[in-house]
């Protein structure tokens, strides 16, 4: 991931909000200071708790799917993991299918609290770094 990938994340560049309601946001992002393998394990665990099916697609891409039909079909969420450094990752969560409100519920009541303890907090920078496994995802282009 390069500097421009990061810069282009700004909502200031996202003109789609001119066309859609903001509360119907269909994407969320987190930075996590852990190796990718830990993040994948965490996401699988959260999926399990929420009763969703979690499957690994290509490198760094996870799919979380509801087992029952929701209001607008089966809820399907992509979680893509990008490496900033080997122990620092950006996770981008996106709704692929299903009802946006159900998606937001999963993000706000499932993913955010579930990932809370590993989302990087600036204040914790002074603490001892967690033991770093040398697991590297192939570089996302």
């Amino acid at each position, binding site marked *: *991931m*390069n*500097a*421009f*990938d*990061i*810069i*282009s*994340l*700004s*909502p*200031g*560049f*996202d*003109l*789609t*909000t*001119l*066309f*859609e309601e*903001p509360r119907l946001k269909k994407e969320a*992002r*987190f*930075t996590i200071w852990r190796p990718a393998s830990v993040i994948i394990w965490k996401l699988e665990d959260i999926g399990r708790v929420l009763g969703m099916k979690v499957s690994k697609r290509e490198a760094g891409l996870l799919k979380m799917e509801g087992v029952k039909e929701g209001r607008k079909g089966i809820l399907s969420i992509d979680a893509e993991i990008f490496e*900033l*450094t080997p122990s*620092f990752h*950006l996770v981008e969560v996106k709704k692929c299918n299903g009802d946006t409100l159900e998606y937001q519920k999963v993000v706000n009541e499932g993913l955010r609290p579930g990932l809370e303890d590993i*989302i*990087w907090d*600036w204040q914790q*920078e002074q603490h001892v770094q967690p033991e770093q496994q040398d697991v590297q995802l192939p570089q996302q*282009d």
Partner: protein
Amino acid sequence: MGCFNSTVRKPVPGHENPTILASQTAFSVSEVEALFELFKSISSSVIDDGLINKEEFQLALFKNRKKENLFANRIFDLFDVKQKGVIDFGDFVRALNVFHPNAPQEDKISFCFKLYDMDGTGFIERQEVKQMLIALLCESELKLADDTIEIILDKTFSEADVDQDGKIDKSEWHNFVTKNPSLLKIMTLPYLRDITTTFPSFVFNSEVEEIAT
């Protein structure tokens, strides 16, 4: 069934001839009219003068007219081609044209370069990228240590800045984006394909006979 030119038409602030704009862009006449519905709602939100000012743009983008954002400012400045501090309907349509899925890659690459060349020197300097990176980190949940920022900048410039002069020129940018097409993601708005279904009320305002497209 047919449309006829209405001769008794109250002029709507900001309206420009859709046929001319359609001929200059990838949009059809009905798409231009649909864009006018969008333009009307944005340009009348603070001052009803048929022009989009910075506050109205911020309101449309962030639902908060007071929210200042470095990147939204860059977009605004590029839309405001005549540098008048306001965006008129022609500016709006011609700029959005670059974001159309069918717009030429060259136009997107060029617009994107100008976006990042904040001081308009014709080069994207390392310092500019650093400034934008830091601005992004400040406005989001992302936080990175100073040396991580330098590592990211080093990596970016070693790939993009081929002649290693500390800045990215237009041709280096062209090559860099060709190798990293995800960088142009922000330059395409799929919504523009369905604009006539998103803003259907144009049907009642149509002033030209619909030509089969």
